[in-house]
Structure formats: C-alpha cells, structure tokens
C-alpha cells in the first residue's frame, strides 16, 4: 500500500466512478474519500446523481467504470464482504409494509442470524430508542412518514453496520423529526461508525457533516469542510456596530470601504472572515481609537456556494413525481 502506515484506511474510497443510462451520462468520473468514523455529506439538487452513487456503493447496481472500496473491500471482487459491513437506508422506504414494526426488526435480526433471544432483545431496544414501542405491533403500512423513516433506520442498525449509507434521511420530515434524526446520526458517529449521507438541504450538510461534497450533473464541483467551502466564494463580510454616528463615520473614513446603515449604526465591510484580515481591520480602527460596540463575522452559507459554483440556486424546486 502506498498509504503511510499512520493513515487509517478510508471507509469509502472511489475513483473515477462513471455511470450512464443509455446516452444519458449520470456520473461522470466521481472521486470520493470518506475517512472512517466521520460524517460525509453528498449534497446536490434533484437528479444530480446522489441516489445513483449510493446504489453503486451499496452493491445495488453496477458502475460502468471506476474503482471502489468500501470498508476495505473491493466492491467488484468482494460484494458480499461489502454487504456484511454496510447498512443502507435508501431514499424510499425499505420496510415490509405488511409486517409490524417489531416483525420487521426481527426479520432483520433473523437475516443477521442473531438467534431468537438476542434478536428479540435487539428489536425491543431499537423500538425503544426510536420511539416506536407503542406502534411496535401495528403493520408498517399504518405508520406515518416520520415513523417509517425511523423504522427504516432502526432496521439498518440491527446488524451493527460499520459504514451506514443514508439517502436523504430527512426529506419529508417535519422540523422536529429532522432534529431527532440529526441527533440519532450524531450518536451513531460517536459510537464509531462512518456515515455517508446525501441531502438536498445545505443546512443539513452544514449541521452534520465533517466533509461535504457538492455534486452537480454527475460531477463533484467542490469538496471540503463547510468552512472551506464557504471560503471558496466571495460574499463574506464583517458587520461592525457603533455606539454613535460619529464612530460610524470615523470608521468608514478609516477603512475607506463598506456600506452604511445609519439607523442601525452598522457598517458592513467585505471580508473573507479569516483571522489575518480581521486583525488588520481591527488594527486600523485601533490606530484611530475608534470604539466598536459589536462585531460579527458573516460567512457565506452553502446556498451562496452553490449559486457561485453552478450559476444557479442549490435547491431547485422538487421534481413533480
């Protein structure tokens, strides 16, 4: 291996992933690397190719080209070893609607050969943890969207997977359920598993992910931490507030740039938000002994990033289905 011995093996590594449907190229050479024990978010609008990537990485469909290892196993040569290490919650619910919540979990336990007693125990634990105990005996067909999503994830966890794929885990959830899901995802990572999730919500990637990749038309257009991505684009600024109009005027004079809000006594100065430029800014105000009442740094959010990199807003309206 060319990796230095100290670098832990990545949980997911893909190079040059390609896939087309007929003449329609869906993935056009995607490279991904997800460090073990981290949350990775694949962010992209409808039709970007997120689900296609998840399906390939989880052995559901084959790629037309590219090399992939998941949990240290080559996807093409050892699909069963990959399957044994992963858990998948797809975009559309993957529960048996004719069975009850408890039966679905026990079905998973049986397929993981946990044995009868251990399977029941695990099912009861997960029902409790996902707040489904009251609905455990009802057919999944009667569950609400949020309950289905939770049952779906609970089923994924029965086999204690090391790498978990979540395709749009919070789409269609209300804000409270979304927060609950985020909390669950954070707990999972704290327990040492790796999470690969897709989302259309910039806020979600920002909130959860250690690293984010932006996918657009089957190509990665950017990759990094949320902070790194935000720094890629202009639009950041520092907002300074002053105690009186004199201070405001003096500051504008000292800095020579910025937009004034006379009523709020604030001045907006363009900035990349970095420490060095902040220090410079404050030094120039200090030189003239100008008192700043409050200072806040505004980095561009991921919406700005998407807009800048693609020339259009990140959250296209949902396809009619």
């Amino acid at each position: 291996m060319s990796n230095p011995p100290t670098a832990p093996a990545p949980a997911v590594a893909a190079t040059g992933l390609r896939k087309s449907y007929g003449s329609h190229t869906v993935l056009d050479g995607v490279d991904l690397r997800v460090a073990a024990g981290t949350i990775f978010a694949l962010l992209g609008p409808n039709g970007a190719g997120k689900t296609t990537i998840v399906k390939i990485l989880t052995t559901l469909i084959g790629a037309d080209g590219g090399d992939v290892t998941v949990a240290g196993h080559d996807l093409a040569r050892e699909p069963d070893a990959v399957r044994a290490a992963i858990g998948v919650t797809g975009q559309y619910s993957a529960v048996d609607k004719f069975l009850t919540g408890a039966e679905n979990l026990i079905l998973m336990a049986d397929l993981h050969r946990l044995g009868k007693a251990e399977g029941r125990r695990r099912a009861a634990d997960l029902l409790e943890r996902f707040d489904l105990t009251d609905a455990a005996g009802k057919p999944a067909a009667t569950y609400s969207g949020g309950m289905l999503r939770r049952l779906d994830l609970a089923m994924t966890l029965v086999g204690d997977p090391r790498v978990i794929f979540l395709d749009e885990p919070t789409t269609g959830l209300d804000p409270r359920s979304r927060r609950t899901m985020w909390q669950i995802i954070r707990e999972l990572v704290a327990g040492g598993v790796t999470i690969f999730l897709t989302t259309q919500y910039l806020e979600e990637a920002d909130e959860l992910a250690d690293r984010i990749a932006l996918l657009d038309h089957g190509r990665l257009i950017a990759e990094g931490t949320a902070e790194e991505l935000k720094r890629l684009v202009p639009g950041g600024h520092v907002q300074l507030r002053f105690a009186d109009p004199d201070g405001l005027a003096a500051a504008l004079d000292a800095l020579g740039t910025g937009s004034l809000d006379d009523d709020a006594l604030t001045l907006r100065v363009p900035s990349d938000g970095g420490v060095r430029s902040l220090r410079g800014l404050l030094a120039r105000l200090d030189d003239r002994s100008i008192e700043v009442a409050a200072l806040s740094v505004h980095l561009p959010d991921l919406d700005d990033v998407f807009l800048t990199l693609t020339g259009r807003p990140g959250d296209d309206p949902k396809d009619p289905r």
Partner: protein
Amino acid sequence: MTALAPALHDSATMLRRNLRHMVRYPSLTLMLVGMPVVFLLLFVYVFGATLGAGIGGGRGAYVDYVTPGIILMTMAGAATGTAVSVSMDMVEGIVARFRTMAISRASVLTGHVVGSVLQTLLSMAVVVGVALAVGFRPNAGPLEWLAVLGVLALFVFALTWLAVALGLAAKSVETASNTPMPLMLLPFLGSGFVPTESMPAGLRWFAEYQPFTPVIETLRGLLFGTPIGNHAAIAVGWAVAIALGSYLWARRLYDRDPSR
C-alpha cells in the same frame, strides 16, 4: 456448518415472511380456492349431466372425470397469484434492502416458492374436499393417495418456479397477472374436461402433447385404476424440465443488474 446451512436459514426466514403475508392477507388465498370451486360446481351441476352422458355415464361419473382437471386448474390459478405477488414484492423497497445484505441471494425466491407451494397444496386440498362433498368417489388406497400427493407436489413445484420467473420477467404487475393466463386454458385444451378423442385433429395433437394431459391422466390412473402407461414418466419429465428451466431463468432475472 455446511455451505448450505446459511442458505437454508435465510430461505426459512423468507418463508416465514411469505407465510405471514398469506395469513395476514388471506384474500388472495381465498380467491385461489374460490375460482376452481366455482368452476367445479358449474361443470358438475350445469354441464355435468350432458358431459357425463358424453363419456358414457351421468353427473356422478363426470364429477370423477372432471376433478383432476379442476385440481390442475387450481394449480394454474395459484401460479397466477404467485407471479403477481412476486412482481409486487420486487418493487417493494424491502427487496432492495435484501439485495444490500450479505444473505443468500436465492433465499428471496425460495421463500416465495416454498410458500406458494404450500399455499397451492392447501388450496388443492380444499378443492378436493369440495369435490368429495359433491360426489367425487375415487377408489384409491393410501399408497395411491400418497403418489397423487407426490405427483401434484412435483408439478406444483415446477409451475411455481415458472410463475416466479414470469413474475420477475414482468415489467408491471398487470403483465405479471396476464402472462400466466395461458396456463389456465391448458386443462381445457387437454383431457381435463372432455376426452381428447372428441377434439379436431390439430387441437387433439396439442392436447395430447401438452404437459397438463399426462399429469391429469396419471392422476386418473392413481385415483381410479385406469391405465397410466407412460403418462407418469412423461409427467415427471415435464415437471423436471419446467422446474429446472424456470429456476435457472428466475435466478438470472433476479441476479441481473436492475439498472441495465
């Protein structure tokens, strides 16, 4: 543990799942039983006297004559049900989940097959019960009945694999409910309802060489002691060929990449 043990374990798990579906939603099973029973009553009470006269007896003789055909009709109807439930199952997300798990790949199919075979045998038992109630009087001993069960189980097994393959091949549930239709006609286009000798030459040729006729003739032989000849061997041959061909076809369909 042998290499077979995990596959058996997974298949048993999948079988439990399918049986649970059947118990919880018995409407399909009831339909599978209801249709042949209606045909049995129709053919016995409406056409029975006339058709019975045609084979040199009366309504009573016709009950005996037609019951094996009705049993095969039950089988054909059940095959349609299997194809429909397999094709419905394949679009369910749970099957996509199974495909991402390290389980025996064939287990999803074997679960369906064993479940459907049990369901069909049960339906046939009910149909035979109704036939006995309306005057079906075979003179078979326990050994012959056992042989009847064996022949039926083998043929049900074969047709169920065929139905699973048809269900997998179908692009929609409607298609899956249509493609096994010809099976429903086979008892009519064979010796199920009238002797093949009464048919015009081309049809008669078809009736004598299609797979249902040797099964029906074998059943008649076991139940009533009529000569079986080489019908039994031909019936077993058909069953093995259909089962093997359909199994391989079904495996290929299930293993194909759904994105290609």
